[in-house]
């Protein structure tokens, strides 16, 4: 079943770039919005919700492919090194941040209160830091 594990690992990397890439793009959008006219900033605010949805898909792909590989490659969680469990702590943190972003966006849609958007510049770097630590401990665990 090597080919299945290869496909799962490719999808896992795709999940990583889909999960982390939009976060980087969001940071660039926030910097652009900071120097934009009010009309321009309003236009730019349409982008992060779409990118957060893309990120959520990436994190879901990471979980699905990762969980399958725990069994298909390693024969179960008992065989994984300590660094893998540290990685999982940061995957849970990343997931929590992405859920917090989705909840914030849902609240904005429901109430129209744009003041809630002030949470996003705090959550974005947290997601980036969590993703970076996920990669770091994945490398330590599997290199």
């Amino acid at each position, binding site marked *: 079943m*090597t080919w299945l*594990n*290869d496909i799962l*690992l*490719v999808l896992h*990397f*795709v999940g*990583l*770039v*889909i999960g*982390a*890439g*939009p*976060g*980087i*793009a969001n940071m*660039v*959008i926030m*910097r*652009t919005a900071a120097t*934009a*006219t009010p*009309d*321009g*900033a*309003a*236009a*730019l605010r*349409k*982008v992060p919700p*779409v*990118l957060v949805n*893309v990120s959520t898909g990436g994190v879901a792909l990471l979980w699905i492919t990762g969980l399958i590989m725990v069994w298909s490659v390693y024969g179960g969680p008992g065989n994984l090194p300590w660094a893998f469990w540290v990685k999982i702590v940061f995957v849970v943190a990343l997931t929590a941040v992405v859920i917090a972003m989705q909840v914030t966006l849902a609240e904005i849609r429901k109430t129209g209160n744009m003041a809630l958007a002030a949470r996003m510049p705090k959550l974005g770097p947290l997601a980036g830091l969590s*993703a*970076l630590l996920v*990669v*770091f401990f994945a*490398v*330590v665990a599997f*290199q």
Partner: protein
Amino acid sequence: MVWLNDVLLMLHFLGLAMGFSASFGNMVMMGIIAKAKPSEAIVLARFPPAISRVADIGLALLWVTGVVMVFTQWGGPAAMPGFFWVKIVAVVAMTGLVGYMHSLMGRAQRGDMASARQLPTFGRIASICALLAVVFAVLAFQ
């Protein structure tokens, strides 16, 4: 030197995420620009050049860390598996496309709308090359 290879591999993955950030960001942005009012489109059009600088740094990071790892981890290019060279073809194609997209972006900024219309197509081809590089990296190193 295990720690050095760990750091290099981590930076390699960071470069990958930075490179793909432009693909996703620009795909979403092109869709929004297409539906935006002209006054909004002017502001939104400032995003692609900004994110392409992030992608350039990511691509440079991929090349630098990748070339260093060929020597620190594998002892030189002769030891690399066959699929690695297929990956390199995809990476070279992607780098060439990024260079060409920069020239198109320059022409678009000077008002050449035909060049601006070509950008999404070449962006999608570059993303496919990046995806192929990931596929062949897995086949080479798994």
